[in-house]
């Protein structure tokens, strides 16, 4: 079973960086992403929003392999700042998983 992490949910809530509230799950970002991973970035943000930390951790390599190229955000109809969200997740993992800052 996937457990909901209150720690990650709180970190997301308190952050002024992570914001995917406007996302309407249209899938444009995934379609234009040169990496072509199914998870980047739409599904990943959904996991974050509902606090599924285990699911997020399973996808650490996708989180670090985002190019931060911005193709997704350029085409996102809801103007979600996708690269900032990915950077936020890296920061969270660096601090909480890798003990790095």
């Amino acid at each position: 079973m996937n457990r909901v992490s209150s720690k990650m949910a709180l970190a997301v809530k308190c952050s002024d960086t992570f914001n995917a509230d406007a996302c309407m799950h249209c899938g444009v970002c995934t379609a234009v992403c040169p990496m072509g991973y199914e998870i980047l970035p739409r599904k990943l943000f959904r996991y974050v929003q509902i606090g599924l930390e285990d699911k997020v951790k399973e996808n650490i390599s996708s989180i670090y392999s985002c190019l931060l190229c911005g193709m997704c955000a350029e085409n996102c109809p809801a103007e979600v700042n996708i690269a900032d969200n990915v950077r936020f997740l890296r920061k969270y993992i660096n601090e909480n998983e890798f003990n790095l800052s």
Partner: protein
Amino acid sequence: MPLPTKDILGILADNLNKRKSVLPISTAGATRWAKGLELPKGGKTILYTGHLYQLIPVIDAMAGQMSRLEDSPLTKYFGLGRNVNKLINMTFFMGMMASKNTRKDYDHMLRNIALLLKKANVEFGYLYGEELYSGALVYDEGLDGAFAKHAQRVCDLFKKHGVEKVITVDPHTTHTLRSVFPEYVKGFDLDVKSYLEVLADSGIKPTTLISDELALHDSCVYARHENVVEQPRELLNRAGVKIKNPTLCGKNTHCCGGPLESLFPSESHRIANNRAKQLKEAGDNIATMCPICLVSLRKAANGSAQVSDLSDTLARAYGV
């Protein structure tokens, strides 16, 4: 086994904290390009290289070794490597394997940029050995603690020299200084412009008309974050160059794959190959405006197309 993300990020952060750069290079290596140009030290307006052009030959030499390590059992020793690197600068020794010719090639691009600015009657100085890396890679990897400290160091350096205007040479340094530093350093309000913007705004006139066809690769960072799309085109148009835009260009440009080189080399090469293919459909004479794009696409093209830095064409057209 893939390369160990945690240990590599650790090495980058340790190096920035201790040695003020992700991959420390010698002062001689960082400043050799300026030899004989007699640029004044410091000044209100400075040319700031951010070391990216000088680092590419080093990164290139290291990347070859890293991609051999990907999927090798040796990756488990990265943790050990990080501990040794804390005491002895291992990355420095790896960098010494950079080829002399590659270094000369990248130094030449910086010289051309400086000479173009002189030709446009821009007055500027250079911080020589005091100049620092911008911290861009550490910021991208979300190592915010190390980045914030470094950003402050760079700002203190500008303050010490009374710098007011900064001319940058690559998209990553431009973006970090212009758009990221103000979020991390209180009161940071320097005027930061890329050399392409400065040249396009100046009245610089071409001395030679060049009728070459040039397939232009826009950098994601310049195009999408810093609005540098028209300036290079204007400079090329003035000189008669026939620009061939690939299908994905300008704000919808496709990444060169370079940002993944240190953590996921094979993915990085996959993206670079895709982009090189798109560019070759536009033409086999390709120009880039970022040293990371240049090295990635050159490797991907592997001799099947000529890939050069935009400054080469500009230098020819504007007579430097």
